């Protein structure tokens, strides 16, 4: 169960071995562009006063999120967090609904009942996060428990960050998952800063992945800016869980390239750190890789960027047409009705 540091993925043939063809690779690039595009547009909307409350982005974490989600099977489920927009995008949430969610409109996945990335579409196997991190880890363990009880070949993914690793929920969830060898993969988005708290004030070991050994499973440290390395390790861990091999903890190392939320200028993060990690921008890294290894042409890239721009423009206008939720409906839905159980999961 020793800690392992994942190797970067090299050539196109290695990538093919890991299960991705050229079309998949272009799909990953598209999802990275859409993810960053949604958050950049969201930032503008926020500054225009069109988004109430606060606004969070996952800049720097796009490859971590997209890489993991690409490795998930269609019936797998997960609990992505506020730096994981790429998971929603990759699973197929329509961008216009994300903008509607940001703006608190009726067509957002939570119909204005909750904000920012506190959303999920159940039909895509996602469960909406809460603010109390890592409270979603025990929930993900419960999904895995259901799969184990029913002997289904499905896997749950539970996300948390290096900050939330300090809370007891993480321990209880991983311990139960380890004891029962449940089909789950724990994804730690380690972006080095828990609001203003650096890692040396958050945990006393070299790697959070070291902790996996204490729960009886493998921990792997992965460069979270390398989408292909993230994909390969997530795929390995997911398929291991699917075949009865139990949990894995993946620590995806990134840097949170913006403040905790839009109000925070992250003055406490050393400028040199930002500069160093800017050299490892996940989108640029993958773009370069595609050009060097998969013959990405200027024409293809222009076409792709044009398509993403159109998706975002259309999404914004459609979201803007979405109505405000009707205050007369405020009292609805506090309690579920038997009809609510007619969901993809409650068969």
């Amino acid at each position, binding site marked *: 169960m020793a800690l392992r540091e994942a190797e970067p993925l090299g050539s196109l043939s290695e990538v093919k071995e890991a299960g991705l063809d050229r079309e998949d690779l272009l799909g990953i690039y598209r999802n990275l562009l859409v993810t960053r595009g949604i958050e950049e547009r969201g930032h503008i909307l926020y500054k225009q006063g069109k988004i109430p409350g606060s606004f969070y982005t996952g800049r720097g974490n796009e490859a971590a999120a997209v890489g993991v989600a690409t490795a998930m099977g269609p019936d797998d489920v997960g609990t992505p967090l506020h730096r994981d927009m790429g998971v929603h995008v990759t699973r197929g949430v329509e961008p216009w609904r994300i903008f509607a969610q940001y703006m608190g409109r009726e067509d957002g996945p939570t119909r204005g009942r909750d904000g920012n990335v506190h959303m999920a579409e159940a039909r895509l196997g996602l469960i909406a996060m809460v603010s109390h991190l890592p409270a979603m880890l025990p*929930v993900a363990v419960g999904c895995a428990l*259901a799969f184990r009880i029913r002997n289904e070949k499905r896997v749950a993914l539970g996300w948390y960050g290096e900050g939330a690793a300090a809370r007891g929920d993480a321990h209880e969830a991983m311990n139960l998952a380890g004891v029962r060898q449940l089909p789950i993969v724990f994804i730690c988005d380690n972006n080095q800063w828990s609001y203003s708290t650096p890692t040396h004030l958050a945990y006393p070991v070299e790697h959070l992945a070291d902790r996996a050994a204490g729960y009886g499973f493998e921990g792997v440290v992965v460069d979270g800016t390398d989408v292909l390395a993230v994909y390969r390790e997530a795929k390995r861990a997911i398929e291991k869980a699917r075949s009865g091999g139990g949990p894995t903890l993946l620590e995806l190392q990134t840097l949170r390239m913006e403040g905790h939320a839009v109000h925070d200028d992250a003055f406490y993060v050393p400028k040199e750190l930002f500069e160093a990690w800017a050299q490892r921008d996940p989108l640029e890294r993958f773009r370069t890789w595609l050009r060097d290894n998969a013959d990405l042409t200027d024409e293809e890239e222009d076409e792709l960027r044009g398509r993403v721009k159109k998706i975002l423009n259309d999404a914004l206008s459609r979201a803007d047409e979405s109505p405000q939720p009707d205050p007369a409906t405020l009292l609805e839905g506090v309690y579920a009705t038997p009809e609510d159980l007619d969901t993809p999961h409650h068969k």
Partner: protein
Amino acid sequence: MPELTYLQAISDGLRVEMRRDDRVFVIGEDVGVYGGAFKVTLGFQEEFGPWRVIDSPLSETAIVGACTGASIMGMRPVAEMQFADFISCAWDQLVTVAAKQRFRAGTPVPIVVRLPSGGGFSGGPFHSQNPESSFAHIPGLKCVCPATPEDAKGLLISAIEDPNPVLYFEHKHLYRRIKGNVPEERYTVPIGKARTHREGEDIAVITWGAMVYTAEEAAKQLEQDDVSVEIVDLRSIMPWDKEAVLASVRKCSKVLVLHEDTRSGGFGGEIAATIAEEAFEDLDAPVKRITAPDTPVPFSPALEKAFIPQVADVVAGLKELAEY
């Protein structure tokens, strides 16, 4: 109809649902081999196997959180807290995750958390509490508190069937002391409907759980004074049967709200306020509350007796109301 203890009726309800519906499973500390601290699930693991009667590590947060996740994946989990007091360790999972998931994300969370609650046996501050009002305050949670074996079975089945998180407060004092006829077949008792435990005309007592029997003893004593006491057993406190309470208040025009939980912020305050708002003109006396005082539950029998409302306390309160 067989006569069962309150505890046997809980087991019976759980067994009936587990036999009928293979989505139902039990998870908790020592619920498997040991059969649960109070033996509610004795023999269950033999019948249903280790993956439907799951011995968990000592992890209330993981127990309730896992139930939430499993329920979203289509299961019908029933969690056992070894004592209701330990639900504080799972507060976040219930209040932050389970209670709000339907409202904000449209995801129903059909889980049941069984909570052995109540005092009277020197369990001390951490094995005796009645924390129902804390959870009745949380929109999205339901709270049931059966007092009879028949209700214990029917409300448990209703709770499992319900598409919401339901906290099932089972009173430890009643486990082996209270017996009653319980139908063998599957049946439900509607959540949110009160039961008239005793018909009367002069004073209405609104109560639930073990206090139903304390009220009954007191009511019998008041018969000697020609005072006729009605006892309304709420059975559920969220949702609670406001109509039944108001009807009883209007009939009797005097009302005593009685609970074993502590006074300030206890659910009796909500009942009293509702009566004041909606039945003020039907009252011939101020609403009276009898509750535990605002202290932790004490250990020593002498102190605990002073803490939990006793029959004599209720008799005194009823006499005061009768004479008003």
